[in-house]
C-alpha cells in the first residue's frame, strides 16, 4: 500500500472501526448483564411470590400450596419446584426443573439466591434458586410459634429465549451502528485527509510538471507550515542545481571555447598549406605550427583530466621526502629567464631548512603554476617575493607579486575554471584559466590550503601544507 492517502484513510477507518467495535462490545456486555440481572431479579421475586403461596401448618407439620392455578396459567413456560429443608417436594410444575449443577447443598435458610442456565431439548432455560420462609398458619393464641417459620428451597425457571432475542437484537443494532459509523467515518476521514493532503498533490503536480527550469521556485505562502521546511529545502536544492547547471554549462562552453581557437588555427593552417604546392621548408613550418597547436590542446586536455581525477579522488599520491629549500630553488630556475625578460626583481625569504614528505610531482605542478602566474601577471618591472616558513605542523609558502591590473572583484573569480584576467588566447600563452583551480585542488589533495589575497596592488597567494617537517 504505497498511497499515503489510502494508508491514512485505512488507518483512520480501521482504528475508528476498532474503537467503535470495542465500545459496542462493552455496551453489549453492560446491557446484557443488566438485562440478565433484571430477569433474574424478576424470577427471584416471582419465586418468593410462589413461596408466599405455600402455607405451613405446624400443628400438622404439613405444607399447602395454593398457587396451582398460577402454574396452570403459565403452563409449559414456567418450571417450578419447592422443597422443604428436609428435601421433601412441596410443590412442582408439571415439567421438571433441572438442578443447578454447581449447587452445593447447604443450610437452606442461609442460601444466597443465584441463577443458572441450561439447555433442555434445544431450548435454553434460565433458572433461579433461592430460599424463602413459608407462611405459617398462625395460631393467634400461640404467637411465639411464628418465629419458627421454616425455610423452603424454591427453584423457578423460564425459557431465556425472550432475553436472548432481545440481546441478539441489541447486538445486531450495535453491529449495524458500528458498521454504519465506520463507513461514515471512512467517508469523513477520506474527505478530510484528501483535503489535508491537497498541498502535497499541488507539490507533486508542481514537481511533475517541472520543466527543468531550475530558476522556478515553489511559492512558500500557499503551503501549510508543516511543508514549509520541505519547500525551503526543495527551493534550496533548485538553487544548487541551478548553480551546478550554470557551472556545467559555462565549463562546457569554456572548454569548447578553449578548444576552438587551436582547432580553428589547425584547420586554417592546414587548408592554406594545402591550397597550393609549397616548398619543403614551408611544409615544415606548417607542421611545426600544427605541433604547437596540438601541444596547446594537449595541455588543456591533460589539465582537465587531472582536475576530474582530483575531484573523483582518483589521483594516486606517491610520497617521498623532499628538501623544500632546494625544491623551490630548482623549480624557480625555469622561470628565472622570463622574470629577467620582464625586468622583475625577486626577493627570497627562506625559512629554516627542512624535509617534508609529500608527492613531489603534484607539489611541483602547484609551485610551477604559482611561479608561472607571478612571472606572467606581475606588472612589468615589478617585484616578486617568495617567502616560506616552517612550523611544527606545516609549511607555508607565500608568493607575492605587484599586480595593479587585478581588482578586488577579480579575486572572487580567479579560482573559477577558465577565468582569466586577459581573455586573449595566444599560442605563447601557457594559461587556459585552469592553473589556479588545478593548484587549489592538488593542494587540497595533499592536505593543504591555497589562499589568494590582494592588498594595495600586491597579489599574494599562500600555500599552507600540513605535514611534519623534519630537519
Amino acid at each position, binding site marked *: 500500500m504505497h498511497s499515503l492517502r489510502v494508508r491514512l484513510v485505512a488507518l483512520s477507518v480501521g482504528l475508528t472501526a476498532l474503537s467503535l467495535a470495542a465500545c459496542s462490545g462493552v455496551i453489549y456486555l453492560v446491557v446484557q448483564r443488566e438485562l440478565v440481572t433484571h430477569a433474574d431479579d424478576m424470577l427471584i421475586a416471582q419465586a418468593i411470590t410462589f413461596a408466599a403461596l405455600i402455607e405451613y401448618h405446624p400443628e400438622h407439620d404439613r405444607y399447602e400450596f395454593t398457587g396451582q392455578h398460577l402454574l396452570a396459567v403459565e403452563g409449559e413456560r414456567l418450571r417450578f419446584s419447592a422443597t422443604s429443608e428436609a428435601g421433601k417436594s412441596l410443590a412442582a410444575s408439571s415439567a421438571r426443573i433441572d438442578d443447578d449443577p454447581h449447587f452445593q447443598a447447604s443450610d437452606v435458610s442461609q442460601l444466597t439466591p443465584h441463577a443458572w442456565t441450561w439447555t433442555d431439548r434445544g431450548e435454553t432455560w434460565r433458572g433461579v434458586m433461592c430460599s424463602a420462609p413459608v407462611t405459617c398458619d398462625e395460631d393467634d393464641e400461640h404467637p411465639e410459634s411464628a418465629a419458627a417459620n421454616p425455610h423452603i428451597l424454591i427453584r423457578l425457571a423460564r425459557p431465556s429465549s425472550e432475553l436472548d432475542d432481545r440481546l441478539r437484537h441489541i447486538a445486531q443494532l450495535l453491529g449495524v451502528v458500528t458498521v454504519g459509523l465506520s463507513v461514515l467515518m471512512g467517508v469523513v476521514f477520506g474527505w478530510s485527509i484528501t483535503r489535508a493532503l491537497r498541498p502535497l498533490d499541488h507539490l507533486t503536480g508542481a514537481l511533475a510538471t517541472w520543466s527543468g527550469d531550475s530558476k522556478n521556485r515553489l511559492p512558500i505562502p500557499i503551503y501549510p507550515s508543516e511543508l514549509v521546511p520541505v519547500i525551503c529545502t526543495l527551493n534550496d536544492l533548485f538553487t544548487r542545481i541551478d548553480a551546478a547547471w550554470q557551472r556545467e554549462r559555462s565549463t562546457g562552453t569554456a572548454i569548447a571555447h578553449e578548444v576552438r*581557437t587551436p582547432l*580553428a*588555427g589547425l*584547420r586554417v*593552417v592546414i*587548408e*592554406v598549406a594545402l591550397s597550393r604546392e609549397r616548398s619543403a621548408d614551408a611544409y615544415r613550418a606548417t607542421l611545426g*605550427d600544427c605541433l604547437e597547436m596540438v601541444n596547446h590542446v594537449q595541455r588543456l586536455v591533460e589539465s582537465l583530466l587531472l582536475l576530474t581525477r582530483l575531484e573523483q579522488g582518483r589521483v594516486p599520491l606517491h610520497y617521498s621526502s623532499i628538501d623544500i629549500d632546494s625544491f623551490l630553488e630548482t623549480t624557480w630556475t625555469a622561470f628565472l629567464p622570463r622574470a629577467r625578460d620582464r625586468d622583475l626583481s625577486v626577493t627570497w625569504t627562506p625559512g629554516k631548512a627542512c624535509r617534508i614528505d609529500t608527492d613531489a610531482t603534484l607539489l611541483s605542478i602547484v609551485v610551477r603554476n604559482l611561479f608561472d602566474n607571478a612571472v606572467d601577471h606581475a606588472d612589468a618591472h615589478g617585484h616578486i617575493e617568495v617567502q616560506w616558513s616552517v612550523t611544527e605542523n606545516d609549511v607555508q609558502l607565500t608568493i607575492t607579486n605587484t599586480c595593479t591590473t587585478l581588482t578586488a572583484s577579480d579575486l572572487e573569480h580567479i579560482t573559477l575554471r577558465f577565468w582569466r584576467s586577459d581573455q*586573449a588566447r595566444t599560442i*605563447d600563452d601557457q594559461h587556459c584559466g585552469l592553473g589556479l583551480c588545478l593548484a587549489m585542488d592538488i593542494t587540497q589533495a595533499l592536505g593543504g590550503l591555497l589562499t589568494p589575497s590582494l592588498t594595495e596592488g600586491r597579489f599574494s597567494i599562500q600555500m599552507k601544507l600540513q605535514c611534519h617537517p623534519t630537519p
Partner: protein
Amino acid sequence: MRILVIEDYRPMRQAVVTGLSEAGYAVDASADGHDGWWHIESTAYDLIILDLMLPGISGHELLRRLQSRQSSTHVLVLTAQDSLDARVGGLDLGADDYLVKPFAFPELLARVRSLLRRAYHIKDPLIRVLDLAIDSVRQSVTRNGKNIELTAREYVLLEFLALRQGQLVSRSDIWEHLYDEHADSGSNVVDVYIGYLRKKIEFDDLPRLIHTRRGQGYMLGEA
C-alpha cells in the same frame, strides 16, 4: 584590396595572412588591439578581419572606436564565441559579418569577397566593364567571351579598378589598397602592373579599357 587581420593566435594569424595574400589581397597583420588600432588609424583598409578577444584593446573596444569615428571600413569578426548574445553584440557594435571559429578558409575568402563587393555597393559577383567580365567568385576574367589569364596581383588590381569603374583612381590610392606595409613604396610597381594588365586585357580590335590621366592616375571603362 587592403585587408587588416587583427588576431592574437599566431598560427591562425599567419595562415590567414598567407591565404589572403595568395588570393591577391594586400594584407597587414596585428597581434594585439593596440597595434591593430595603430594600423586602423594610419591606413585606409577595405576590410578588417577582427578577433574579439585580443590582448591590449579588446575587439569590442575596437568596434566601438570604429563606430564612434563613423568608419566606413567593413569589419568581419572572427571569434570563438558562438552564443547568440555574442553575435548580436558584435553585429550591434558595427561588425558587418561574423564567422565562428573553427571555419573553412574558403568560407572566409567568400565572405571577404562579399564584404568587399558590399564596400563598393556591388551585389552581383560578376562585374562588367563594357565587354569585360570579371567573375569575383572564380577570380576569372573574360573579354568579348575570350578567357584572360591573370596573376593574383593583376586580378586584384583589375578588380579594384573595376569596382571603381568610371572613376579616376590615383597611384597612391592603388598603392594604399593593393600593397601591404612590407611592399617597397618607392618602386613603380603600380605602373608596371598597369602595363601588364593592359597587355592582357586590351586588344587592337577592341576599345581601350584602362585610361591614363597624366599626373592623376588611371580609370577603367569608357574614356
